[in-house]
């Protein structure tokens, strides 16, 4: 099983990222050394057990459908239009979460909430 997933060590070309940033917990450690092949991270130097699990749990594989509408596979374009329709039609839409994402996306979220006249809230309120 392992051999079919992992290429032979000699053939594997690893990208090494030094001082990588771990976003699992609020510590946001920025001294992690990551070794990755094209699809997955194989080594996480200096990361704690939570960080290691976080890095190894996400891959660059296409494991999930691009988008789902009512549980059926759809294109991203259609899903974006459907999302915009729902948010635009709502009287009081809510934009929620914002933890596990970048500041750039959070800014867009604030803009979207303003545009649709909705509520914006994060995990802080829990």
């Amino acid at each position: 099983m392992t051999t079919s997933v992992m290429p032979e060590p000699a053939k594997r070309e690893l990208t090494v990222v030094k001082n990588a940033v771990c976003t699992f917990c609020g510590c946001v450690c920025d001294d992690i050394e990551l070794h990755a092949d094209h699809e997955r991270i194989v080594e996480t130097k200096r990361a704690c057990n939570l960080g290691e699990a976080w890095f190894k749990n996400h891959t660059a594989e296409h494991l999930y459908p691009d988008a789902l509408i009512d549980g059926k596979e759809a294109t991203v374009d259609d899903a974006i239009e459907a999302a915009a329709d729902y948010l635009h039609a709502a009287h009081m839409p809510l934009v929620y979460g914002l933890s596990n994402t970048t500041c750039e996306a959070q800014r867009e979220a604030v803009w979207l909430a303003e545009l649709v006249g909705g509520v914006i809230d994060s995990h802080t309120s829990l």
Partner: protein
Amino acid sequence: MSCTLGEVKNRADFIIYWGGNPAECHPRHFTRYTLTPKGKFIPRGRKDRTMVLVDIRETMSAKAADIFLQVRPGKDFEMLSILRALVKGQRVSPEGVAETGLKLEQLQDLVNRMKAAKFGVLFFGMGLSMTRGKHMNSAAALTLAAELNAFTKFVAMPMRGHGNVTGADVIMRYTTSFPFGIHMGRGYPRFNPGEYSTIDLLVRGDNDATLVLGADPGATMPKPAIEHLKRTPTIVLDPKVTHTSRLSRVHITTAATGITAPGTVYRMDEIPLPLSPPLKSPYPTDEEVMRRIREAVQRKEPWYPVKSDAPQMV
């Protein structure tokens, strides 16, 4: 009053963790920032620091502590109030002290140590801010730290959980002037936790659509809230198909923050750090999808009345 973790590393000789278990939830907090590193004014590292843990049970973190104070569950506010009184040299009632499950000598010793510290830090976790008393507990902890500044340098810092929740506070603060729980329905931001906070909205069933970004409320929220997410249109952006995705009308798979998606995240002391993702995702980033949804909404008729000569939102 707060500071950066770099200041803690270089200066703090007295560290309190209250209602948190960093040994298991923030495993590198001790070794990177607070306890073991040698700092500019802390030449001997761990030997020059004293650590106190206040919690309702003896967690893994208690092993790292010099002093462990086991407070009775739900009595954090009472304990903080007694500490504040002792800091000011006021008398406290023995019944009040007994209620916290601790002895007066223990509390007086803690106060003496806090006052004698050169630079003290109070880290408080969800065990303080999310239990009985909630934001009143956080307020009491912050006030205690502030009042100690009459005697020495003392700061307080919340132990933030999920990666970039600090970033969410910062971004919302500088865009809307409020940190969370903001309603834009009047065209300007209004802040009212309890009314505009997610759980309350969902449980009451106030909102009629939800966009979930970087969270999985379907796995963590109370049942009435999840029922409301099911009943109304829910849109989810996530690197995986989550519990919330399964009860949503629209799910869009996005790149994972910091692993396949670039950007900026804030550390718990509000230091922004740029990400360096080692992998390339087959999916678009949160930022790109959010921008495209926003642009799609912008192409529609605005929900508010617009005069033809009024400046347009760009």
